[in-house]
Structure formats: structure tokens, C-alpha cells
């Protein structure tokens, strides 16, 4: 049985990036459905996305990357996709790594596969020094708490099984969601795995995490991760 594959591309004010991202995905995978979640962009992101063959779901206002990605999961669940891949709209993620990302899901080895920049062999851009320190901190924290080795918890380059799609369509953290989502996945008994990938520097624009918000980001995510320990364990049936 061929598994239906959906690529989820959350995009907020990514005009200039979004078209190239979609075209890159299309050139690497011949038959694939792409859904661009336009998260209340104020620029021409929606129009640019509509010029491609991707589906475009526009949210009426900005709900944050978590809410946007969750919309993608809801779309995938409703339209019966078996595998979803999350790719950021800014062109940071190298689409030539789709296959290694998808392989464990296809073979039912994992429910979530994270593309990690910090797994050997090292393959290029690995973020600035300060950011790397933060990422390693979260990596150790989550690895310790979940007893499951994670090296790049902030990576948004991920593949999800049908089970993970169902979980996240109903419940997904909404600001700075990536590290917390791993905790959530563990709470639902989903298996998480990492594969080495390459990422690039952003082509145009800024990351959503800037200097002034760094402290808030670190505190918020740490608290959110810790809070996940005392929240109830849940079970999901498929």
C-alpha cells in the first residue's frame, strides 16, 4: 500500500521565500501534496503560494507557528494522509533529506522523526554559538526527562506518522512549540527518533527568535517542558 504523504509548510510573512520552498519540494518529490498554512501574513505570502500547485489554507489572523502547524495536522487528519512532513517556509530546510526522514515512518520504526543538525556526520550550518548553547541545554533536559536521546529539540524539520498526526491535530503547544511537542509526544506514548540532516541559513528575513525574546524563550520553554512532567499521561487509539 502506498502511503499518502503531505508536506506541511507553515508560513508567516515569507514572501520571497515561500515560492522557492514549494518549488524545491516539488522538484525533489514528483508526486506530493503540499499545504501552505498562511498564518495571517500581512505581505504577499498567500498570493505567492497560490501561484504554485500547493494547497493554501489562510488563517484569518496570526496564531503563531504552533497554531499554524496544528492546522496542517488537522488538514492531514481530515484528508486521510498517512505521513506528514513539516518544513519551514523560510527555506532553511534542505529538501534533499526527505527520504532519510521518511524511511523510519514508512517502516513503522517511529511515530516522529526529527531532522537533527547535531548528529554525526555533521553536514553544514549549525546555528550561532549562543543558540547552540540553548539548543544543547534543551536537548539534555528533554533527553534526561524522557530517557530518549534527542540532540536537536528545536528543529522544525520533522516527519510524523498517522498516529502522531492524530495526537497533534487535537493537542499541540502553540508558542515555540518544537521542544514541548517532544514532551507531549512522549506523554501520548509516541516514539521519537532522529536522523542527521543539513540546514541552511535563512535566505530572506529574520528568525522568529531574536535577542530580546531569547530570555523569555528560554524561561518559557524550560517551564513548559517541566510542566509536562506533572500533566496527565494520555492514551490515544487509532
Amino acid at each position, binding site marked *: 500500500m502506498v502511503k499518502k504523504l503531505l508536506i506541511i509548510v507553515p508560513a508567516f510573512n515569507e514572501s520571497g521565500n515561500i515560492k522557492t520552498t514549494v518549488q524545491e519540494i516539488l522538484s525533489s518529490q514528483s508526486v506530493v501534496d503540499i499545504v501552505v498554512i498562511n498564518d495571517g501574513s500581512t505581505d504577499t505570502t498567500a498570493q505567492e503560494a497560490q501561484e504554485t500547485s500547493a494547497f493554501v*489554507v489562510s488563517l*484569518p489572523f496570526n496564531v503563531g507557528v504552533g497554531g499554524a502547524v496544528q492546522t496542517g495536522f488537522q*488538514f492531514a487528519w481530515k484528508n486521510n494522509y498517512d505521513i506528514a512532513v513539516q518544513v519551514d517556509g523560510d527555506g532553511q530546510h534542505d529538501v534533499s533529506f526527505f527520504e532519510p526522514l521518511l524511511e523510519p515512518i514508512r517502516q513503522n520504526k517511529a511515530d516522529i522523526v526529527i531532522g537533527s543538525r547535531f548528529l554525526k556526520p555533521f553536514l553544514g550550518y549549525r546555528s550561532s554559538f549562543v543558540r547552540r548553547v540553548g539548543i544543547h541545554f534543551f536537548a539534555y533536559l528533554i533527553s534526561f526527562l524522557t530517557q530518549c536521546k534527542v540532540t536537536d529539540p528545536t528543529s522544525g524539520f520533522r516527519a510524523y506518522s498517522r498516529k502522531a498526526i492524530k495526537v497533534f491535530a487535537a493537542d499541540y503547544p502553540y508558542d515555540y512549540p518544537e521542544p514541548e511537542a517532544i514532551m507531549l509526544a512522549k506523554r501520548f506514548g509516541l516514539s521519537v527518533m532522529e536522523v542527521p540532516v543539513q540546514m541552511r541559513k535563512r535566505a530572506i528575513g529574520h528568525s522568529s527568535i531574536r535577542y530580546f525574546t531569547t530570555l523569555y524563550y528560554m524561561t518559557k520553554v524550560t517551564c513548559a517542558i517541566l510542566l509536562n512532567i506533572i500533566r496527565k499521561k494520555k492514551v490515544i487509539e487509532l
Partner: protein
Amino acid sequence: MITIKILVCLVALLLLALVIELIRREKLTFKYAIGWIFVLVLTIVLAIFEKLLVNVSQWFGFQVTSNFIFFTMLGVFVFLCLLMTVFLCQQDTRNRLMAQKIGMLEFELKELQKKINQHKKDS
């Protein structure tokens, strides 16, 4: 002493009238106004029968009755603030869910329209 009584009663009555007027103009729903009405009526009752208030505050061990009033008010406001935050979070979540639903529905509507147009062209 009697003037304070009158002052408190007057202010409470004024607020009560305002709350009722707001309900009449449909700016407040009864659900949210009931708490205000209850507190204001209680204030008037306690202002008239002040002995009751003094007794209660002495029973709790307050030396000055006004301290008891301040303490109670602070407690009520902290609780109210927490309640409001809970409401805010609830609204926030609902808002987000609504946005996602609207996005999906809009998409489905467009797809349907495309299909209809295609059908018209074909026939």
C-alpha cells in the same frame, strides 16, 4: 459614624443602579453581573447592620474592623484576577480553534467552488 453609613450606602446604591442600567442596555449579561449585584447588596446590608461586620472581624481576630475589610477585598480581587486569567486563556484557545476552523472551511469552500465551475464548463 452615621455619615459613613450613608456614604457607603450611597456609593453602593449608585454602583447597583449602574450595574442594573448596564444590564438593561445589554452591555452586561446577567451571568457576569450577578456577582456584582451580590457584593453590592452585601455591602449595603453590612453598612446598615455594622455590628455584624464588627463581630465577624473580631471572631477572625482582627483588631481593627477596617483591616478586615481591606483584607477581604484584597483576597476577593486576587481570586477575581485569577478567574479572569482563566477566562482569558479559555477565550484564547477558543479563538485559535476558531481561526483554524475558519481557515479550513474557507479552503474547502474554495475547492468546492472550483469543482462547481469545472462542472459548469464541462456541461
